[in-house]
């Protein structure tokens, strides 16, 4: 099906897909900023993200067209790498790009009603411009093969994100300190990353990631490389909300506009995790990361700690969005645990969970946004009895919630099962027990919500019977169906992640 797409589209689009994927939303952003009407801006945003989604599919098709996964290299401005900036797409990039563009597309479709309700109409077109810039940045991070370029795209997306988070101030002023805190932490994270890249540059004299991985082999004992490694690890860890560095996340998710929360939860931390994986496995290489720098001693305990501590914190939240935010940090822990195994199976399980968690959290936050739009209020009490007054919205919420717990037949089960399998293969049975224990905690915190939604009487009995609008329900159920499809037949996704893991372990690039 994807291959057919490459045949239909004009050759120009296919050959330049890596650039167009990033350029299309980038061109639309200033256009949208000048538009007077918010509705038109929304149309352009849907158009831009949809175009990027098609480009991502084309790239996936091209990468998959070869047995072991091809590598597409696109030289910006015709300057050949390693001197020029290169966009480099392999299976892993294509997978992450598909996640980002897909979630971006669905988010921009569903966003209109909630944005109309939450953002002042004079700011709507600027809001969509900021959203497109953020989207551009995330796509750029996932597409680029140049370490410094990655920093620039990371900051492009982050700066737009701070603005988007702060726009939640129309609803609750606490969005402002949350955004300012996020700005501080995010900038420090990005700065750490760029210091690390500087050390690598000092040791090797190149910024191209493929070239870096080759040259690093000769200078592995260099102290500058070790320092750079530490800086990059901490910097990207901050952006990815790795356990002790996640303090910015709960408030930013809880107070930003519903649309922004949904988009960020599904993409932003995922892209940072991708960058972390890319640096750990491709640039530094397995041997350096796991044997030389004993990454297992850091990544694994942090993953476990996140799974337990943040799941506990989620249990005690009364605000649903805050609870889901803490759960996000816990899920990052699952992904990092898979990665810390340092085996192909572990990384593959981590990647599957990365995609699944994007789909699950996207759907959950979408359903919450729908409920907030119609019924106001995000506390547990506000959600009581919604299962009866908004059955379609809340059923989708329920299925995604079960998937978050890891109930069989859903995507969440597939990834947790794969993770436990990979853990047992390596003999880490105690880690597998922690995974199960953390899932029990997920049963508690999701169960509390599901019970309130489906089995309790509404707090206010004359709450009117009303669903979220269709434009929210359609993308929401789209995500739920994807979730169930992965749950029933994970072969497609597992094929992709296995390919990506194999290319990571197959000697760098």
């Amino acid at each position, binding site marked *: 099906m994807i291959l057919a797409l490459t045949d239909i589209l004009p050759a120009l689009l296919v050959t330049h897909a890596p*650039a*167009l994927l990033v*350029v299309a939303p980038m*061109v639309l952003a*200033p*256009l949208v900023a000048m538009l007077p009407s918010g509705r038109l801006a929304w149309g352009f945003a849907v158009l831009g993200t949809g175009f990027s989604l098609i480009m991502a599919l084309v790239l996936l098709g091209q990468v998959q067209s070869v047995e072991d996964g091809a590598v597409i290299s696109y030289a*910006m*401005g*015709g300057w050949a790498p390693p001197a020029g900036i290169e966009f480099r797409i392999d299976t892993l990039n294509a997978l992450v790009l598909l996640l980002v563009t897909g979630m971006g597309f669905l988010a921009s479709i569903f966003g209109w009603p909630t944005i109309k309700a939450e953002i002042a109409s004079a700011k709507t077109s600027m809001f969509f411009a900021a959203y497109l810039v953020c989207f551009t940045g995330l796509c750029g991070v996932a597409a680029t093969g140049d370490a410094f370029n990655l920093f620039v795209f990371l900051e492009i997306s982050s700066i737009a994100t701070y603005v988007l988070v702060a726009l939640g101030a129309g609803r609750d002023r606490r969005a402002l300190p949350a955004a300012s805190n996020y700005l501080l932490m995010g900038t420090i994270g990005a700065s750490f990353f760029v210091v690390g890249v500087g050390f690598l540059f000092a040791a090797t004299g190149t910024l191209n990631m493929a070239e870096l991985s080759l040259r690093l082999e000769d200078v592995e004992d260099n102290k500058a490389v070790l320092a750079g490694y530490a800086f990059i690890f901490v910097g990207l860890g901050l952006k990815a909300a790795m356990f002790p560095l996640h303090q910015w996340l709960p408030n930013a998710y809880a107070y930003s506009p519903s649309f922004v929360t949904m988009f960020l939860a599904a993409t932003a931390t995922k892209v940072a995790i991708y960058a972390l994986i890319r640096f750990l496995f491709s640039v530094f290489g397995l041997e350096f990361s796991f044997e030389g720098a004993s990454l297992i001693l850091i990544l694994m305990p942090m993953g476990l700690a996140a799974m337990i501590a943040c799941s506990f914190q989620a249990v005690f939240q009364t605000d649903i969005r805050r609870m889901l935010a803490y759960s996000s940090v816990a899920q990052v822990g699952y992904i990092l645990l898979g990665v810390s195994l340092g085996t192909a199976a572990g990384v593959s399980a981590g990647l599957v969970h990365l995609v699944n968690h994007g789909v699950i959290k996207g759907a959950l936050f979408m359903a919450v946004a729908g409920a907030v739009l119609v019924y106001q209020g995000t506390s547990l009490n506000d959600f009581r009895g919604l299962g009866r007054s908004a059955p379609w919205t809340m059923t989708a919420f329920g299925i995604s919630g079960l998937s978050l717990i890891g109930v069989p037949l859903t995507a969440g089960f597939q990834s947790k099962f794969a993770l436990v399998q990979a853990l047992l293969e390596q003999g880490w049975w105690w880690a597998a027990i922690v995974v199960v224990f953390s899932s029990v905690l997920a049963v508690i915190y999701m169960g509390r919500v599901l019970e309130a939604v489906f089995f309790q009487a509404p707090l206010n009995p004359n709450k009117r019977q009303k669903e979220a609008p269709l434009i929210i329900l359609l993308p929401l159920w789209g995500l739920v169906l994807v979730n169930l499809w992965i749950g029933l037949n994970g072969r497609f996704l597992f094929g992709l992640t296995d390919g990506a893991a194999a290319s990571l372990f197959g000697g760098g690039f």
Partner: protein
Amino acid sequence: MTDHHIILRVVAKVLIPFIALYGFYVQFHGEYSPGGGFQAGVILAVSLILYSLIFGIAPTMRAVTPGFARAVAAIGFLLYACVGIAALIGGGNFLDYDALVDEPVGGHLGQHLGIILIEIGVLMAVAGSMTAIFYAFAGRVSEIRDEDW
């Protein structure tokens, strides 16, 4: 407004055109020597900001409206992107200046044209957004009173 800023006003009136001119010098000389769109854009914006510091923000906003500043920034950015896309259509990669002009191998016209257009885009984007940022902050507070100088 009383007259005790007269020295400032007179000096600024003389200086501002030269600052703007210097901005353009940095811009167009930037192809062969240190300089370029970033620096030139900031210098241009500085001339505007200096004007508004001396003569007040309201007259500046009448001359260069905030909407215009934002539009200049957006158009500059679009110019940049359009050069890239023009190169795409011309058969090269994104931002491949050589593909801008159909010329024999070894010609420099595409490179010259490309970098000049790109730098003009950068100039507009930087000058526009710097001015817009300044307006966003300065437009929020009331005029500085004479006693506060």
